[in-house]
């Protein structure tokens, strides 16, 4: 009987929708804390979930520059709601993370690492743009010469259940950044949602094992064809396009262009874009001492290149104006990142566009810079 065994890696299977809870239960029983999309506080966030009933069924996020609105629709799909303000970043690289404690010992100090007691996470519903974003974070924290052991631990223990988007919103531009909407690699399981079933691609041994005991069946050629159709349909929905050709050069050549001043007139330097960005990784450290003065905790906290203090050195600040900070963010994301890591720091998720309080649109500004720079 098919359902009693597990599918092989790289196989594609079909799973009836009601059986999906079984997959979640298998993950929970394997010790994973499930993190998935759910409606809370008037929006869709990524939070601990247990049941399929917690998915944002019947809701959609309508997003445009400076706006993200949760509206009801008649959809019965679990994963039709696209990305909200949350990415998976907070679970891999927490906004506040205790690095170490220092205890006073006579004249001296003893430094001890803090223990991270988070359970392994199963990320439910990772879209292609966000998979690419995780690969970007991997470049920063584990693929370089020096590994961050905290990130590495969370990342290596994470189970990734990816989802092929079956719809797009106006802020999506993954096709321009070559990062979606179809999921290709870096997952344990990749789902495509059909009205009454899921087509599931098996990406790893762990993914295969999670299907044990669920009534999966081998996918037919028709099912596989449906996956391609849905990917094509989603791709057609993506209206936002931006040319990425020759990007580092374009932005480096326009560093002194007066148009940066025009953007700075609108930018509030609020750092929202960097908080919602799934790839922004800047952090600072804070020391917190107990009143006795004998124990200090050092905490790593998200930081942003939009914060005035960010580039402070003795004698001054190297980016005192909003113009210089916005320019730093955009040129890092779209140009310097390519020099540093060999890929773009932007994955086209559109979060910075929707969550910018004044609706600054990175694709529009890039196109504008291209047309101005060309002159």
């Amino acid at each position, binding site marked *: 009987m098919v359902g009693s065994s597990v599918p092989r890696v790289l196989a594609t299977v079909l799973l009836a929708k009601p059986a999906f809870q079984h997959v979640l239960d298998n993950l929970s029983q394997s010790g994973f804390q499930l993190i998935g999309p759910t409606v809370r506080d008037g929006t869709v966030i990524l939070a601990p979930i247990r049941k399929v009933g917690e998915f944002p069924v019947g809701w959609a996020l309508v997003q445009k520059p400076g706006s993200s609105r949760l509206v009801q629709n008649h959809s019965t799909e679990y994963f039709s709601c696209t990305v909200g303000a949350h990415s998976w970043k907070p679970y891999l690289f927490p906004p506040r993370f205790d690095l170490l404690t220092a205890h006073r010992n006579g004249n001296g100090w003893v430094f001890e690492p803090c223990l991270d007691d988070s359970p392994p996470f199963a990320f439910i519903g990772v879209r292609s743009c966000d998979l690419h974003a995780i690969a970007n974070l991997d470049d920063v924290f584990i693929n370089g010469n020096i590994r961050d052991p905290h990130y590495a631990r969370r990342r290596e223990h994470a189970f990734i259940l990816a989802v092929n988007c079956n719809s797009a919103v106006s802020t999506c531009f993954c096709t321009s950044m070559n990062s979606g909407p179809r999921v290709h690699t870096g997952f344990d399981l990749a789902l495509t949602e059909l009205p009454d079933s899921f087509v599931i691609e098996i990406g790893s041994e762990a993914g295969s094992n999670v299907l044990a005991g669920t009534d999966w069946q081998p996918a037919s050629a028709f099912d596989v064809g449906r996956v391609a159709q849905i990917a094509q349909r989603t791709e057609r929905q993506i209206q936002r396009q931006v040319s990425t050709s020759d990007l*580092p050069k374009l932005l480096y050549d326009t560093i002194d262009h007066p148009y940066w001043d025009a953007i700075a007139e609108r930018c509030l330097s609020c750092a929202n874009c960097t908080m919602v960005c799934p790839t922004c990784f800047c952090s600072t450290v804070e020391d917190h001492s107990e009143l006795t003065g004998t124990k200090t905790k050092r905490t790593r906290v998200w930081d942003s290149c939009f914060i005035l203090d960010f580039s402070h050195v003795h*004698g001054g600040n190297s980016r005192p104006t909003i*113009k210089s900070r916005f320019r730093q963010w955009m040129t890092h994301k779209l140009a310097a990142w390519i020099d540093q890591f060999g890929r773009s720091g932007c994955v086209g998720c559109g979060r910075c566009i929707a969550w910018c309080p004044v609706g600054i649109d990175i694709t529009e500004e890039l196109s504008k810079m291209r047309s101005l720079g060309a002159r």
Partner: protein
Amino acid sequence: MSTTAILERLDKVDPMLPYTATIRAIRTEAYGISTFSLEYNDPAAPMGFAPGQFNMISLPGFGEVAISICSDPNAPRMMEHTIRYAGSVTRAIGRLRVGDAVGMRGPYGNPWPMELAAGKDLMIVSGGIGLAPLRPVILEALHRRSRFGRVLVLYGGRTPQDLLYTTEFEKWQEGGIEMYVSVDRADETWKGQVGVIPMAFYRTRLDHRNTLVFSCGPEIMMRFVIYEAMARRVPKEAIYVSMERNMKCAVGFCGHCQLGPVFICKQGPIFRFAEVESFFGREEF
């Protein structure tokens, strides 16, 4: 310490975790500037550094700062750090005494290319506290004087009181190092030159085919040093500069020290000028 050995240690332990180090000596250099001799308590702590590298020095409750190692790389056990009391962490370090402990981790960063300087003339141009990361170069050159051609030190400070390591200048000169020291503003005690340090280029000759220029100081000073060196046909591949930006981690995680395509902690702080030319001196970049 070899890069492999550093990487091995960092792989085994948290790269953000400092070792405890004890202050063995404090020497006042100038008003608000002192040199701290620091020694790791733990014998397993990394030993050895190359000229131009820096350590992250921690004072729990205040934070961490990147400070260049300014001592002799041939005596790596005791590392000296010249610290100007500029911010909250450095001011708190300034209140410590001999015997007190701090946290320290390192060494980090890309060093001055000493091996490329072998057989060549070495021109060291620095301003103010910028002499600190170049002092290991000078001490190394004194140790192995015959490996280098001429060694020139062009050093400038705002006033005679702001100059570092002045008690050592005589010894350096006796060791075969040509010194050109000047100050921006002299007082009645000053017998030397007055003027900004790039002007010292006019008082010496250099062989542009066989000279490496190492420079560290305020960016505005380095800009003119580069200008004067290139005006004397020194190729930009032979000019090295030490860059400074805010740093929180020193290992490429925190993002603070980005300068265009580079992270100063990883690819720097020492850069061949040709590598950073397009970003050097760009206003607010």
